[in-house]
């Protein structure tokens, strides 16, 4: 069995890079929020200190083996989703496992983490956590509809469900899918707002209302693993959207620039908006984004 050592190296390096970029983005978001609120804010590497502090906690408690497994499910889903997305185009080192899976597989893999985490949250027995999970799942039904509509319209337009083929289509700047199907892009971005979990769609977390919602009983190393998984997952989602709509990237500089610009859309919307209630959020996703998605499909079909 000949193992391609370059591929194994890529498999090891990619989560580490994703972790560093994701955590830095987290700190950067806190800094930008602070500047908009006319203050200085923490340094950019603040989230690293948070994660190291959480790992260095001396005690931790759990309510059962399912809670112990919850963050493990989350990080499995994050890293596996990252593996099936081509991080850089035409790169042997970083294409990982993207030739063995396609978009529909990715949609389901991204749900695996939330499902496992929801089980772990369930065992804690805190009613706040249960309310948070029920709201989070209800909202997921909301934003998945425009997300799937956008992806289906692109899949039909280019007759493929594989990300590598979509990257191959977008070889020139003017061939980017954001220009070829702008309505699909707008639908996708509106669904992306829901996926990222910033305001106005952060009702599952709702710190002041639900005592931080689902993760209210996680502390110490469990919370650290969950934050790690969250950072990697943010990076994975950003790279997914960049690959579908913005033409992917050939080297890390372009990738960082594109993902950062894409990330600013939910963050900046989140800083200046209040929070929707759950049914308002669900109805929002079922109105205009769904209508735009249906229009996107109709444009492709006719």
């Amino acid at each position: 069995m000949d193992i391609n050592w370059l591929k194994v190296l890529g498999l090891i390096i990619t989560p580490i890079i994703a972790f560093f970029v994701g955590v830095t983005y987290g700190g950067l978001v806190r800094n930008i929020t602070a500047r908009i609120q006319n203050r200085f804010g923490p340094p950019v590497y603040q989230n690293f200190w948070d994660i190291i502090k959480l790992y260095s906690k001396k005690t931790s408690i759990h309510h059962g083996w399912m809670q112990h497994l919850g963050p493990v499910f989350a990080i499995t889903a994050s890293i596996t989703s990252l593996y099936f997305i081509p991080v850089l185009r035409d790169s042997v080192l970083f294409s990982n496992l993207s030739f063995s899976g396609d978009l529909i597989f990715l949609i389901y893999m991204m749900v695996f983490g939330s499902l496992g985490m929801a089980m772990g949250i369930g065992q804690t027995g805190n009613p706040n956590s249960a309310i948070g999970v029920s709201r989070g799942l209800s909202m997921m039904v909301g934003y998945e509809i425009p997300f799937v509509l956008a992806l289906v319209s692109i899949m039909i337009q280019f007759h493929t469900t594989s990300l590598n083929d979509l990257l191959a289509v977008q070889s020139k700047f003017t061939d980017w899918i954001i220009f070829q199907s702008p309505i699909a892009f707008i639908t996708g971005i509106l669904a992306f707002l829901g996926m990222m979990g910033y305001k106005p769609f952060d009702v599952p977390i709702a710190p002041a209302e639900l005592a931080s919602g689902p993760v209210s009983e996680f502390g110490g190393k469990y919370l650290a693993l969950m934050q790690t998984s969250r950072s990697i997952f943010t990076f994975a989602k950003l790279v997914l959207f960049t690959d579908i709509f913005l033409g992917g990237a050939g080297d890390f500089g372009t990738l960082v620039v594109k993902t950062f610009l894409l990330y600013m859309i939910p963050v900046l919307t989140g800083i200046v908006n209040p929070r929707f209630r759950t049914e308002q959020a669900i109805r929002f996703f079922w109105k205009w984004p769904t209508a735009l998605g249906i229009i996107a499909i109709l444009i492709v079909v006719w």
Partner: protein
Amino acid sequence: MISIPALLTLTFAAGVLVFIIHHTIPILRDVIAITAVAISGYIIWQLSGTTSSVQFSVGTFSFNWGVTQYSQLFALLVAVLSFFALLYSSAFMAKRDRLGYFYMNFLFAIGAMYGIVYSQDLISLFFFWEIMTWSSFMLTIYCCEEAQSVGLKYFVFSAIGAYSILTAIVLIYAGLDSFQLTDVFANFNSLSLGIKITVIVLLIIGFGVKSAMMPLHVWAPDAYEKSPSPFTAIFSGALSKMGIFGIGLVLFKLAAGQGFYPYVQEILAWIGGLTALFATFYAVFQTDAKKLLAYSSIGQLGYIITGLAIGTPLSISAALFLTIMHGIFKSMLFLAVGSVYYRTGTTNMNEISGLIRKMPYTFITVLFGIITVSGVPPLAGFAGKWMLYESLIQSNHYFLVVIIFFASTAAFLYLYRIIFSLFLGQEEKEIENIKEAPLRMVVPMIILSISTLVFGVFPGLLLKPISSVMKYLGDFQHPWETSVLFNNWGNLVDMNTVITSIGVIFLLALIFITIKGYKATRYVTTKDIHTSGEIPTENENLTYAVDFYKPFERALGSVLKPSVDKFFTYFGNLLEESFEHLRYIYTGNGQTYAMYVMVFLLILFMFSELIFNVAL
């Protein structure tokens, strides 16, 4: 010994035997039932690959029973599920009464299902269909007095279906003068267009009642809830597949190639999609675990009907794969809920919670069941769902994709509800003395759970018999490998890579988080939670169960107000009121009837010339 009559006589004779001896030696009753089904499974396994058939005539009817690839698939599914269900019921029903009645009807239902899939002529199909309906009706009303109205609803709908099938059979016989399936398939085209459409619609209605197609599904939630759990596993896992069996035959042998076939496909696909969507919505708001699983069954059957209706090779593989997997995981889930009922006495999700530490094997079964139903990799549900979505996208059914995806995402809601409400959450004082279910109940559940993992990583194990079935149905072909799923555009999913990456990362993360700070990690009870510094007393209720999805209900608004059940009840009441008016004629009085007869004879006598052309 290895032949179809032997199979059927074995099962039916075992049923009668159990009924006769059930008072004398209890253990023998269980042993006879289980060994009968085991031997029947062996016989079916030996029959595969052969084309053994048997013909005999009774009077002017000639019966024909034969083996085809299509029948083997369903028969094996029935045999395996029945074996596990009977093993489970030997422990579950141990302290109940009228067990001879239970086992006899159970074995008759199994035997009737074998008869349906092996019959090659329409009369035996109908004959075994009726036996299956009758025996499942007897088991629906087994438990208690309240189950009788539920059983009546089931029987009325099954009667509607059965009469539709009978009318269709009569129409076919009138046109083609033969009951044999081979003749019917070959000469169906020679009927007139009106007859063809009527026959196909009637057959779809008849088979659709059993597979709970909307709007004929209203018997299913109550019937599944009231029947005893081991039988519900068969009821939902195997009996509903008989309807799918019939619909498959109708679509691919009778309707294919006709001019109106695209219309049939479109209508049936949309019915399947809407069934899935609305059944899922109803399932989200249930409070009883068995009713929730019943609505979930209706939804999954909607997926299967859509897959069959689309008609491309990929979608037929998806539908047949989902058929087998639905049988496995629905039985698993009903058996698990049954063991919860066995230990606690209730399946109401608002009353129990926190069973994970007391019943860990049942929890693992439900966990595997949930991951399979939701379609998340690496378990088997993903393969079926993936193939279904790909086939929908590639056959230009765009909006149906969105509806099916909507239903699939909403499925997460009720799946989380059932595992959270029963197993996770607060551990109240009432569950102090609950133990795990007995071994005979745990073993079938665990074996079925492991099989979902095996079929998830190696979907080719199921795709192999499915491809031979597709050849029989209409010479469809689709590429497959043991661990790789393909679609028509050349994209693939390699399950080997998936399971390797998931497994390795899972193990590494688990080892990491268990070892880190091992000595300083400790377990606390679920009463030690953040309640703002307060200490919850013993009878303080911290369980979040009632109105679990109120925000979703508010978001849906008035979509769920119209209900098919209410429509049928209203229609039934309307008929009953109009029948009250008929009471003026059918008075129930013997003398009135005698007067009617006299008047009729008088009329005949007086107008005999006009009527009979003969003078009296």
